[in-house]
């Protein structure tokens, strides 16, 4: 199982999304969410949204393994 995290505004769109999913890449996760959560999928399609696996920024085709933690990160606004 892959653990999912959605930060910032993405969290508002992901309240009903299960916390785990079966997928082999972050791109596949986005694809799997499209049917049930079209608004979230549209947000994830924004080019500024980054994805991390186990707390490292990666590409959308990064291979995932059982227990991977995938986080979707909108543009940061700290400081």
């Amino acid at each position, binding site marked *: 199982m892959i653990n999912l995290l959605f930060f*910032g505004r993405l969290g508002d769109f992901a309240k009903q999304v299960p916390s785990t999913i079966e997928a082999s890449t972050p791109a596949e996760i986005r694809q799997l969410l499209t049917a049930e959560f079209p608004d979230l999928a549209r947000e994830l399609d924004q080019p500024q949204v980054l994805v991390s696996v186990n*707390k490292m920024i990666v590409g959308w085709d990064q291979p995932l393994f059982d227990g991977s933690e995938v*986080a979707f990160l909108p543009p940061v*606004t*700290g*400081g």
Partner: protein
Amino acid sequence: MTTRISIQQQDFDLAEEYQLLRQSDSAVGAVVTFSGLVRDFEVDPEVDPEVDSEVDSEVDSQDQSSTKSAIDLLSLQHYPGMTESLLEAIVEQANQRWNLIATTVIHRVGDLAPKDQIVLVGVASQHRAEAFEAAQFLMDYLKTQATFWKSVRRNGEQQWIESKASDQQAAARWDGSDNG
């Protein structure tokens, strides 16, 4: 090189942090600190500033701040574990660019009120130029690379703050420059 990085809910004491930087080494000749505070106004992204000039003249003059409205609360979210690593990497980059003696980065998370302190960046070095530059670099990179997200609550409604192009431009000025 001493590094102090903290992500915390509680407030920090600027004088205390300054003393730590000042006392970190007898070679310290310059300490620069920056603290960022919660403003009581944040631009309301739902109000287009372009429209403001066309506002009907009958609108009460008190409404002239229609592009900005007072906030009740500012909340800061972060990604525990990842945010700390990113801050460490940012400080490491500063160390590679400048000859620094001690660096402090404190960032608060959770709910904050107007006038509260949000962030502290402090740099101790032998000379002022590197302390000034490194402090600016740290803030520019922190604002664009560290995984923090701000939201504000106004009139009971939560709104996420949008990232600013000006912050991206500020961070981009360090790209390719040789401050080594």
